């Protein structure tokens, strides 16, 4: 039964006790005050779409669960920077700044967009892959599995909004 207890355990990491460091190979290590060490940690989002800045699971080695960072913004700035850099690699999410063109042919929607990573052409096969979240946030999952984000639909320019709405 002890195995069962550990299986159900969820550890929420104390944000002020976390110290991340990056070695010369680019690997990230974690020290939890006072004396807990984890080498080569990885970060996985539990809710990558609906809550990208919260609930980040820290893993070390293959699949050893260290715990969960409840809120990225509660971390000290240095720690947050490192986690954000790591997440940025693991979850490439361009932000859409303008929608240049939008049309749909036989159910496949195509957006030509400008993003913070440069221009892109997004194909969406199923309108369920355009997800709406509170505060006007929209996430588009394209046909290749890349996530594009509109941080706030209402803040896009009028024409982009119209083009977007016509397709949804």
């Amino acid at each position: 039964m002890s195995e069962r207890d550990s299986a159900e355990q969820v550890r929420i990491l104390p944000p002020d006790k976390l110290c991340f460091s990056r070695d010369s190979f680019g690997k990230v290590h974690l020290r939890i005050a006072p004396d807990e060490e984890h080498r080569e940690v990885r970060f996985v989002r539990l809710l990558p779409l609906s809550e990208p800045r919260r609930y980040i699971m820290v893993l070390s080695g293959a699949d050893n669960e260290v715990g969960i960072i409840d809120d990225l913004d509660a971390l000290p700035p240095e720690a947050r920077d490192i986690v954000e850099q790591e997440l940025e690699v693991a979850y490439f999410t361009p932000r859409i700044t303008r929608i240049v063109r939008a049309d749909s042919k036989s159910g496949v929607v195509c957006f030509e967009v400008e993003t913070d990573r440069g221009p892109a052409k997004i194909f969406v096969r199923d309108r369920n892959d355009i997800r709406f979240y509170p505060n006007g946030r929209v996430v588009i999952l394209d046909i290749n599995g890349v996530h594009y984000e509109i941080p706030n639909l209402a803040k896009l320019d009028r024409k982009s909004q119209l083009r977007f709405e016509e397709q949804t």
Partner: protein
Amino acid sequence: MREDIERLLDRGEHIKLAVAGDVSIHGQFEQNWLIATDRRLLRLACNGDGEPDIVEIPLSEATAIEKRGTAHSGVVEVRTDNGTVPLFRCTGATSREIDSALPELQKLIENNGATELRLRRPRRARREARCEKCGQPIPYWSGVCLRCVDKRRLTLRMLARVKPYWAWAALSFALMLGITLADLAPPYLTKILIDRVIPQFDVRLLAIIVGAIFAVSTVSALIGVVRGCLVAWLGQKIIYDLRKDLYGHLQELSVSFYDVKQTGWIMDRVTRDTGNLERFLAEGLQEALRDGLTLLLIGVILFFMNWRLALLTLLPTPILAVLTMWFIEKMHVVFHRAWRKRSRLTSLLADVIPGVRVVRSFAQERQEIRRFDERSREFMEANVRAGMMAAKFFPSVGLLTMVGYLIIWGYGGYQAMHPHSAVTVGTLVAFIEYLWMFYHPLQNLSRMSHRLQHAVTSAQRVFEVLDMVPEVVNRPGARPLPNIKGRVEFRNVTFSYEPGRPVLKNVSFVAEPGEMIGLVGPSGAGKSTTINLLCRFYDVDEGQILIDGVDIRDIELESYRSQLGVVLQEPFLFSGTVAENIAYGNPDASIYDIIRAAKAANAHQFIMTLPDAYDTMVGERGLRLSGGERQRISIARAILKDPRILILDEATSSVDTETERDIREAMERLIANRTTFAIAHRLSTLKNASRLIVLDNGEMVEEGTHEELLEKGGLFKKLVDMQSELAKIVAVGG
């Protein structure tokens, strides 16, 4: 007839049952009755005016009553000490009525008349649907007796839905009157223009009239815009309210409602019928009033301008109206036919496409193509007929309307050539324009009766659902039971879905808090029914189900079900994210609660490998999960809900051994400290159960632990042996 029967009875004799029949004992059609009183059984046949033909058997002589035959027809025989007497022949629906009454009649005989009969109206087969009031068969597509529909009452009920918005509706109507009046002005102004302004070179008046026509048209257009927006909003708002009420009510209705009605039927009510109502309430009604008014006003103006010409001009209109109505009647038939053909075509698709694996494996592609082609051709032909019909109609209507114009030009033109005639060129032009405006509402009105019929039918169907009363409801005085400990007792429970065919017979058992009870038995034994009753999808017919000693019917439904967990064999996932599916039933759960539950259900590991972790879409259009994965998500759902009473329906079947171990482990965590009822396909999976209850044909035949029952060598042993035999065969063959 009733008097005839009552005349036959002795003083103090009571009728217990009366069934109308239509066939004599020799198989000839005749009207007759089977009557059971507290003293005797009677058959009564009416032969014309003469005295009724009577067969009677005193209850004291009868020993048994039986029916010989099939579900469709048969003969009721009464056994007496002197032999068997054929009493009554029954066919069709009567036969089913007899089937459900027979056990009660048997009791009546056994108790020599001293029982109250408990009769339930047998559920009618679908094709037998008849109106409760007038007995007319009800068309399949309607579900409502078209003769008995009280149009006035329904129209009033429809209008009642408009009541909260009556001010807006009145405004919209007023605006429409404004448009109608405004539209009537320009032709008359044209007449003045031609007759007076142009011959007299009156430039000032010309400017005024042209200006007036412009002003009137502008105003009319503006009002049109305002009214259009208003009507769009109003119509949708009313129907939005109706849909909301309808769906709210659907969620309250008992499971038995969903047994009887198909999904398509219900979806039609919520989407199509409400749409029909919307069209009628927002547009149809007001348009009809407007059209009537327009006709009247134009008629008045025409007669005012020149009554002789008016009389002649309007001569063809009755013919036109009759022709239109006749045609619409015809069109209705052909178009309905075309619709039916289309729905036959789509239903074929809906049927075959999900079964494509079967089609392939039986190599039936050609056959299916032929079937599709057949229906597709039927559809095409029906459409061609409808199209040809329309092609014939519109030109003939055009021709007939032309007659009106010819009369104006012929007679009116001839008159206008004479100086000082009452008919001027201006009158002619005005007449032509008014006639244009006359035909459109005329055709609309001819269509009106159909539109009304549609709306009323839809209204009836919607209200039918709204008026339906849920079968399983909170009894008066039902109270919440916040902390169920989990003692479950079945006390002499008898239940039947259809009268006369009990599925559970006098079943009694007790489950102590925390016990796991396995339900075992051949298919049809009543395992699923036991679980349906536990979920309180239905109420028992006789006996009681007690939860912690309280009758289940005295516990508030919501309070009870919130403490009940169900894991089904085919776990149902809603379209939504993994997190939402686990939190279904617990929408306030935090992500940490969800993860804890997922971990306990051995689901966390695989969830983290999904592309969007807990945000991954599953369900109908989402990611396809394997059976074992869906299973574990539904276990997590149950763990999160933390129910006091848990129901597992064939929880581990059709998954590989590796996953099965994961699932079983998850199950063990789930089951701990809860009263659990489990149906398992594989009897070996019930080894951990505290006790097994073996059901056979609705009766409880054995009870005990796995070992006890094996030792006992009864039905359970037999089932286990059969299964291991089967496993061997599969092992050898596979």
